[in-house]
């Protein structure tokens, strides 16, 4: 960037703002200050599809890997549900297998599926297309990021095959029990888990660097930050959170690995086992909990914020209406992101802390409900008097709103120390977090896949299978998690392998069986979805260009589906936000972002 350029820029700005009308000579587009990004042009099959530097292919690689490991997580959840619903029935389920299933299910779903899918998958595919860039700013680093992720996944899978099996310490991996004999997988499983997480963090940091800098610095001309689709705002803020929060997980992983392998005592207190004193002493398990949750709570929003952003876009496009309160939506995303760093100890109310500490974290937790509620109101108000098309993405978006409100409200209860203490470590908590960060973001993932699948493949997913998928998943999720809240109320603790003949469990036995059956059905439907994805790839109904009549740039590439380099010869120039649907005064039903004001002279500016 040179000084001459900057001077020129200021002059044009001065003349333009003085004119003040909506069709000013504003179409004098700013001079391109930098030459186009030099792209790496792949020549062989290997560099095109395997060691690929194109963000779109990397996004698909991320998504496929995350989906593959996600299905393993799904099958693990069947294992634990079978044990809980029908204890002492299945010979292949022992306490160790049960705990390993719980642990791996949790870790896989939160980190290797949702984080990787939202940021690695959707982030890579959508960021360059939506901001009008040819590719990520550091394509090579981006490629390495995916391969680090793949290695992390492979290390994780390898832990299933080492002596002792994978770790069964619970997804929070609390020391000291995580690395002590007696916990399943305390031999090699826990080490591989910690190594895998560290690799994931390193790989993610490389990807995150790309997402942030591409969004900040490589947007096309006219694409101001406040003209970006909310999807990008969500992914951007989540990536910033991840860059700041994942180091905490990394630090915790490294120190626990050293405790395990070198016998240091970062987290290990004095321990007597089998009548003998171990070498450990003086370490603080609470310190691990603080580090873990300093990562763990932002992690909730790392998953939720991209979902918030994507669902805003889905609702707007499929209700043919601009997002209600775009600015408030951006504000809310940023505020939620900032607040998410000062609420972590609400996961630790029963760990023992100064009462004032609990008071502080309860307060911040309740404050974070305010911007979140603003977002929910805005989604509802976007739907209000909209032209709602009940397409599958819209169905999933509606499912998301209901589920998110549901899980959010139980969160308000759990955020209060007094209510949390009796409910802590019961199934109420399990039901809460599955609703709010399991089902709700997954609804968005599904909606987004049905929405963007035509862009990626040029074909629609099968609509009938899609409707079945939605209804079974939506109704089934409630069949699973509503009864689970009740189980929590009657005091059934989570993480227990079996309740045996506990007196208060009598009313819970039937419920547990019901939940298990529902979980099996919902799980099976996901395989139907997978089948749909693979068969529609070559026999799905051909989609015309921009089938949902959306405004954002990814639908307006010269080639459809977009090809290497995204935008052909000339990058598009942006003149408006992506929500110009049914603009008053315009004869067009929607105005894409790159349509210049002179092409739609009668359109009036919309307030937001």
């Amino acid at each position, binding site marked *: 960037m040179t000084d001459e350029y900057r001077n020129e820029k200021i002059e044009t*700005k001065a003349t333009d703002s003085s004119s003040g009308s909506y069709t000013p000579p504003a179409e004098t587009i700013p001079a391109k200050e930098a030459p186009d990004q030099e792209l790496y042009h792949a020549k062989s099959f290997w560099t095109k599809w395997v060691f690929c530097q194109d963000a779109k292919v990397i996004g698909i690689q991320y998504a496929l890997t995350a989906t593959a490991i996600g299905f393993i997580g799904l099958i693990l959840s069947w294992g634990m549900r079978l044990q809980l619903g029908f204890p002492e029935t299945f010979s292949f389920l022992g306490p160790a297998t049960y705990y390993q299933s719980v642990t791996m299910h949790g870790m896989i779903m939160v980190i290797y599926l949702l984080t990787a899918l939202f940021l690695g998958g959707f982030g890579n595919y959508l960021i360059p297309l939506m901001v009008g860039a040819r590719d990520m700013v550091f394509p090579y680093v981006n490629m390495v990021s995916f391969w680090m992720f793949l290695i992390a996944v492979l290390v994780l899978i390898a832990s299933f095959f080492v002596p002792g099996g994978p770790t069964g310490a619970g997804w929070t991996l609390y020391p000291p029990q995580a690395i002590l004999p007696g916990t399943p997988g305390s031999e090699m499983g826990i080490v591989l888990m910690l190594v895998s997480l560290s690799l994931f963090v390193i790989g993610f940091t490389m990807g995150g*660097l790309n997402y942030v800098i591409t969004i900040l610095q490589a947007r096309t001309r006219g694409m101001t930050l406040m003209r970006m689709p909310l999807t990008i705002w969500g992914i951007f803020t989540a990536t910033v959170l991840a860059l700041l929060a994942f180091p*905490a997980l990394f630090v915790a992983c490294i120190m626990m690995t050293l405790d395990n392998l070198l016998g240091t005592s970062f987290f290990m207190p004095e321990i007597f086992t089998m009548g003998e004193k171990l*070498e450990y002493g003086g370490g603080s398990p609470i310190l691990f909990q603080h580090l873990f949750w300093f990562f763990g709570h932002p992690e909730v929003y790392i998953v939720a914020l991209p979902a918030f952003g994507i669902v805003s876009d889905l609702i707007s496009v499929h209700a043919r209406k601009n997002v209600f309160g775009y600015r408030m939506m951006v504000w809310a995303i940023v505020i939620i992101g900032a607040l998410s760093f000062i609420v972590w100890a609400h996961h630790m109310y029963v760990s023992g802390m100064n009462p004032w500490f609990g008071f502080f974290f309860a307060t911040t937790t309740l404050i974070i409900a305010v911007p979140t509620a603003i977002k929910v109101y805005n989604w509802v108000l976007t739907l209000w008097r909209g032209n709602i098309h009940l397409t599958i993405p819209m169905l999933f978006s509606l499912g998301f709103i209901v589920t998110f409100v549901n899980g959010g409200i139980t969160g308000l209860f759990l955020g209060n120390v007094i209510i949390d203490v009796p409910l802590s470590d019961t199934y109420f908590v399990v039901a809460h977090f599955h609703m709010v960060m399991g089902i709700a973001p997954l609804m968005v993932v599904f909606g987004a896949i049905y929405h963007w699948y035509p862009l990626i493949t040029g074909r629609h997913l099968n609509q009938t299978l899609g409707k079945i998928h939605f209804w079974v998943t939506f109704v089934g999720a409630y069949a699973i998690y509503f009864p689970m809240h009740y189980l929590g109320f009657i005091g059934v603790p989570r993480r227990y392998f079996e309740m045996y003949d506990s007196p208060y469990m009598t009313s819970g036995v039937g419920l547990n069986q019901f939940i298990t059956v529902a979980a099996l059905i919902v799980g099976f439907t996901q395989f139907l979805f997978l089948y749909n994805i693979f068969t529609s790839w070559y026999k799905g109904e051909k989609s015309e260009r921009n089938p949902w009549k959306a405004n954002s740039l990814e639908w307006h590439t010269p080639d459809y589906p977009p090809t290497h380099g995204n935008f052909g010869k000339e990058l598009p120039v942006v003149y408006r936000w992506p929500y110009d649907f049914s603009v008053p005064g315009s004869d067009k039903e929607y105005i894409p972002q790159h349509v210049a004001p002179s092409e739609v002279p009668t359109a009036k500016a919309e307030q937001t």
Partner: protein
Amino acid sequence: MSKKELNIFKLLSQKPWEASQSAIDNQHDGKTLDLSKAKLGVRTIMVVSTVIFSLFVVSYSDRMLVHDWRSLSEPWLLWINTAILIFTSFVFHKAKIYSDKNEFEKTKNAILLVGFLSFAFITGQLLVWQYYVNLGQYASTNPANAFFYLFTALHGLHLLGGLFFWGRATTKLFTKNYSISKIKQAIELCAIYWHFLLIVWFVLFGLMIAT
């Protein structure tokens, strides 16, 4: 161009739908900050590293309060290593000044000296490890030792990562295929990173001798 966007409150209170704002926005060239991508990349890395080291420092301060903490006595070798690191940063600063003045012959000498000094520093750190191991001070002996090994290892790994990019900058400097601006940028960014690692070392070393 983007002074206005540096203030997040101003940015987020823009009214993009108003004609006047729209006219301004249409002139926007798509960049938020007046920085090159590489520079922003280095800064992001430094922020992430700072978070990592800060969390270690927090853990350190928490752990040292426990009664089993026995501080290590620092060998004089550690002071020499510190001096080497300071001198490295100084030479790198010189290299950057030379390259800014287009005196590339001097830059080449300086940049090679930087590489030599950096490897000398890492060797020095390994000697310190050897010194402690010979004394029977292993990582598991005491939490202070554990943190010492952890800090030095992480700092060393950061330096090795930097040396990877130093290698690339050196290649650019010694081959003729690269534009001068690219060489200058590579040297400048490496220099910033070296200064950053020096500051990190001051903090870690300071913490260790102060406690």
